[in-house]
């Protein structure tokens, strides 16, 4: 493979000439371990300065460059072209989200829902002089949810989000789970009414697109199911956790 064909779905809703979505193709010289993000930069620097896309860390930890590549949700930086097993690479913005331009989508609703779920540790007890003790076993429960990078892949992939604007979606609910399952968290009734309802966990129909979409291989559905059980436990037994 000496070059690849990079197809990019372009659209500038504010432009008179590019307002309609259309595909553009570019030939990119191939080098070992070329990533899709590097290919996008190649276009921006060599063919078309007007190309818009998000980026930051280029090491799959910041969540900026989530896009839809060859029919799957991926981080452009983490996608080694060689692993796509083809020399034709198609990049689209994450579907089902309002478009800003080219590969850049609006994330305002996504972060509004994140904020709505009250994603912070809640305490009633006075803070100790040192750390709040937590066993390694309790800490282990956080391993999965704290790795979320808020890229939005799960949110974009979720049919329940497509069908209902008010549904909080997998990422916000995973964040609720991250705090509800934390042994240090003492929230009783603060967060619960925000997720234990039809806008929250009961809108999840375990379609599990989020699990497939997550570029960090996390499992939002698992968190949502835990929350459903926790809600029942609290209703039946009044237990806070």
């Amino acid at each position, binding site marked *: 493979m000496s070059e690849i064909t990079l197809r990019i779905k372009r659209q*500038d809703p*504010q432009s008179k000439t590019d307002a309609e979505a259309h595909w553009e193709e570019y030939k990119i010289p191939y080098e*070992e*371990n070329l*990533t899709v993000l590097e290919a996008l930069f190649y276009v*921006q620097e*060599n063919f078309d*300065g*007007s*190309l*818009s*896309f*998000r*980026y*930051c*860390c*280029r*090491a*799959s*930890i*910041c*969540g*900026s460059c989530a896009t839809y590549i060859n029919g799957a949700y991926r981080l452009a930086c*983490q996608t*080694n072209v060689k692993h796509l097993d083809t020399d034709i690479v198609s990049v689209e913005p994450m579907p089902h989200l309002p478009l*800003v*331009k*080219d590969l*850049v989508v*609006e*994330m305002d609703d996504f*972060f509004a829902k*994140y*904020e709505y779920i*009250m*994603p*912070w*540790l809640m*305490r009633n007890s006075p*803070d100790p*002089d*040192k*750390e*709040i*003790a*937590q*066993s*390694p076993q*309790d*800490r282990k429960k*956080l*391993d999965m949810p*704290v*790795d979320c*990078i*808020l890229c939005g892949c799960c949110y974009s992939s979720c049919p329940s989000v497509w069908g209902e604007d008010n549904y909080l979606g997998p990422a916000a609910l995973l964040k609720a789970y991250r*705090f509800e399952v*934390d042994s*240090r*968290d003492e929230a009783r009734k603060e967060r619960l009414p925000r997720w234990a309802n039809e806008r929250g966990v009961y809108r999840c129909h375990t379609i599990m697109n989020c699990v497939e979409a997550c570029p960090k291989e996390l499992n939002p559905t698992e968190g949502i199911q835990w929350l459903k059980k926790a809600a029942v436990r609290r209703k039946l037994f009044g237990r806070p956790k």
Partner: protein
Amino acid sequence: MIHHDMIVVGGGLSGLRAAIEAKMAGIDVAILSQVHPGRSHSGAAQGGINAALGNHPDGHDDSWEKHAFDTTKGGDYLVDQDGAVQMAKDAIEVIYEMDHWGCPFSRFEDGRITQRPFGGAGFPRTCYGADKTGHYLLHTLVEQAYKRQVKLYVEQYVARLIVHEGVCQGVVAYDMIRGGFETFTANAVVIATGGAGRIYNNSTNAIINVGAGMSMAYYAGVPLKDMEFIQFHPTGLYTTHILMTEGARGEGGYLVNGLGERYMERYAPKFMELAPRDITARSGQTEIDEGRGINGQGYVHLDLRHLGAETIIERLPGIRDLAIHFEGVDPIEEPIPVSPCQHYTMGGIDTDVDGRTIMPGLYAAGECACVSVHGANRLGGNSLLETIVFGRRAGAEAVRYLADLQEKRPNARSAFAALQAVEDEIQALADSTGGEDAYAIRTEMTDIMKDHYFLFRDEPTMQAGLDKLMVLRERARKIGLRHTGSVFNLDMIRTYELPGMLDVALAVAAGALARTESRGSHYRTDYTTRDDENWLKHTLAYYQPGVAGPRLDSKPVTLGTFEPQERKY
């Protein structure tokens, strides 16, 4: 015109912590950030954050005094000791605070925060959450910022400071989503924009780390300090320069050359792989330069295999994922190809321990600032610490300044003048017929920095580099825009930021050429020893309008109880 009492530029750990401090004091504060704060480069930090908690079984005799000493010695005595002492003292408090705010640190069996050994430290004092400590700390502070309703202006590219009669009164920013420039006036501005790693072609840094905050302050007349001190990390992935944490060696990983030797035995027999980064990086490069790289090539191996699958999966899961995704190597099965890479900017905007610059109303914190707590070489685990400690201190100092301020109405004429200046610059770039290509110049600059100001430096090489940078700086006056659209215009940002990168690069180059000694990360093959008599002082670089390259000056190092001595590890 939008007004807040206080504006923070940058939404990484320093900026978030400064804003939270101000918000807790009841100040109307806003953060302007080029990316959503949760996407800041702080999140890429891996190994940990230092504090003498004494939680580790081998750490019971640790203390903040020993932390301050290790920091000072690690920095080859160019450290301002008041800063190092302050940081080491505050460290303990801020770690507990981050825990109380929910940071998911890993835990010992007794429920306390885990600590691991790190380079140049006398005790295992680096607190960690697996190998994703920066990500965990960053998200914790993002959560606190939302909880406290800190106003966030996301995807705002800050282009210039508003200065009225020598006092900072806000910034001019480009709204990437909605298009157009706007003035944000304020009575206090904190710059927290991170490092300038991307002036090199082999940086571990995020793509947005171009030193924008540094050049912004520099253009406003604030000096940059100690810019010649650039940290090169011993273990970046060979092809992509992505960081492989020092924590991998803290957990017992080996550095191995092409002959299968643990070569650190030759350079630091006592500390071995956990010598400070300057020494470890030079050692690796020496092996490569002398033909003992793997198969004689430009890399060595970071070997974790003997740690076993369980330790790697439990404590270094992020490293493993990165090695698999970006280098195609699973560290459980194979050693990781690594080479020294640009990693950190020790120098930066000249500040004191409270983030103050020489300009009233202007503060800086984190990697863009230089207190200096890192001196000539930063210890691993001290950068995350610096962001939180000095973000908090800068925020608190800005609050005190606001409380004492008599005249609280920023001058509208100066705000509009700054806005007009930026729009004129953009228009000039749009109209340019100079024919120079900003992207080609950027590539040449990053090549020059790597080729002329890397681990081993000497006068002829550095002089040649400086001459080339001077030419590039002149050529950069003839760059222009390719795209003039208003929404998410990357071409405009990347073209506009280039002259600032070149001026920061020139400050690095001029400082390095002038400093005729070897100290910490600044190693000269023509002056191989430290020269305390002439060079135990900070370099200050002042911007000279219309002239390529800085005016250099110096100021004394704040010494303390730790007498400068020879560094041995």
